């Protein structure tokens, strides 16, 4: 447990050693800020209640969707390439602690980013009457966080498969995109088992059909949690397998 925390802390701090984390932060707050300025204007001028759900749509796609592969691509591929993985694998750290630590550190960065955007609906809440629909807002945020957790875990797993960071980036982007769009083919054969499978595999369906509408469905929560656990499990196996080469 202590190892996970040690690695997570280093991973989190490590993001700030490079400019990437700052660039991602600036882009996210700049884009979110532009939308916020529209909302603010509408709120002050017309006392119009903006629905913050639309702003969160932007936060998920494209902002976080693009930022996750960029920030996870280096987690293992860079260590593999520079040889520092040899240090970690010869330190008294279990393989799953290493993978979970890396995921936790990166996920906490996204969590900070997501939580900081809460500033916008909080401000809007003061300006308009009757204010923002808080329960719905909370469900939205929970959904975004869970989705970011799964996507980060997938990015970490894919990074463990590569030595080349750009290859890891493209593979993560591709995989996330497939998970994003996988429900689309379901419309060609509606009502079949295959359609059900495709729909239920989709990263988007579990958000748009529930959290986004303000509902918290245990099935959707377990989907994101399972996906996170599965990706971390595969990441652990991938690291383990390096010892057997």
């Amino acid at each position, binding site marked *: 447990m202590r190892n996970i925390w040690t690695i997570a802390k280093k991973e989190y701090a490590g993001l700030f050693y490079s400019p990437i984390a700052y660039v991602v932060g600036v882009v996210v707050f700049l884009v979110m800020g532009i939308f916020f300025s529209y909302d603010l204007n509408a709120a002050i001028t017309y006392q119009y209640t903006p629905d913050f759900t639309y702003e969160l749509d932007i936060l998920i796609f494209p902002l976080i969707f693009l930022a996750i592969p960029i920030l996870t691509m280096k987690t293992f591929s860079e260590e593999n390439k520079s040889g520092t993985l040899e*240090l970690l694998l*010869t330190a008294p750290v279990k393989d799953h602690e290493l993978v979970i630590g890396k995921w936790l550190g990166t996920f906490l960065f996204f969590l900070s980013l997501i939580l900081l955007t809460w500033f916008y609906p909080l401000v809007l809440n003061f300006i308009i009457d009757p204010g923002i629909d808080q329960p719905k807002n909370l469900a939205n945020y929970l959904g975004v966080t869970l989705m970011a957790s799964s996507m980060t875990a997938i990015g970490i797993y894919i990074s463990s498969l590569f030595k080349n960071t750009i290859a890891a980036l493209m593979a993560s982007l591709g995989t996330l995109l497939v998970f994003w769009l996988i429900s689309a083919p379901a419309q060609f054969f509606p009502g079949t088992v295959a359609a059900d499978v495709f729909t239920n595999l989709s990263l988007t369906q579990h958000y748009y059909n529930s959290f986004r509408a303000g509902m918290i469905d245990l099935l959707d929560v377990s989907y994101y949690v399972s996906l996170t656990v599965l990706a971390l499990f595969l990441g652990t196996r991938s690291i383990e397998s390096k010892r057997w080469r």
Partner: protein
Amino acid sequence: MISVQNLTKDYDTHRAIDHLNFTAEKGEVLGFLGPNGAGKTTTMRILTGFMSPTSGTATIDGLDVMEDSLKVRHKVGYLPETVPLYEDMRVFDYLKFMGQLHKVQEIDERVAEVLIQVGMDDRSQSLIKNLSKGMRQRVGLGQALLHHPDVLILDEPTIGLDPKQIKEVRNLIKSIGKERTVMLSTHILSEAQQICDRVIIINKGRIVAEDAPENLQGRVSALRVVYVRVSEKTDQAATALRELPGVLSVKVLETGRIEVENVRESDVRPGIARKLVESGYDLLELTPESVNLEDIFLKLTREASSENPPLEPEPNDSQESEA
């Protein structure tokens, strides 16, 4: 402390190490000597749990490196050959991070202590990417020492250091080797001669010799050679030397030196000096040739691969002359 039995590792079709057997005791500095690609790094990577062997077993303090990998990793300090470090971290933070993974108590004090030990205390706040090769090497060594490991495995620990640092690191290894077990690989032969209690020479994944450096020297030849130079009449002087007791053969070299081969047990130098001076020659030089580890190494590794052409010289001459 370290015990290796029939250790074998195959990479695809290539056999990197082939049924290695050796042990290392507590308080021993074991040198692992061999040309590039001999299997030194592979053996060390198996001992540190980074890699699994294809067959055979390796134990450290009675613990199997695969079965009890985590316990073994607690006991081992490891400096990999490439000295991997986190470029973007500061020296202090890096050592602290590695120390935390090794569960080092009172981490800040211990890091400060190690930094002094490896002579990097004045650079503790430097970014690792701004360090020179020698400094990186010392940070890597510090990392290996942090958790007071019982066994220290160092893959080419003095590469990239300047002569003063080499001396310091060697002294450090020697002092650590008094209480703990140190296994180091090197292809600098004088280094092995200086700091190792025992040397294992490995070539193409097999052990070709294993002994104390002094004993290894005796193996190569039972002969000793003395070089003699006189001011003039070299040929006549050579003839005169042939009659001395203990001398086996005398040869005049193109350089004007006389090469005197004698049996190992007797020192013929006083006899040579007396004979030449009494006969009226001006003796200019009398140099015994010492068989060094280099010759043994070349001889042994060449023997081991006699079907192949002789080994290329190690590309490490500059290092040796520095040392």
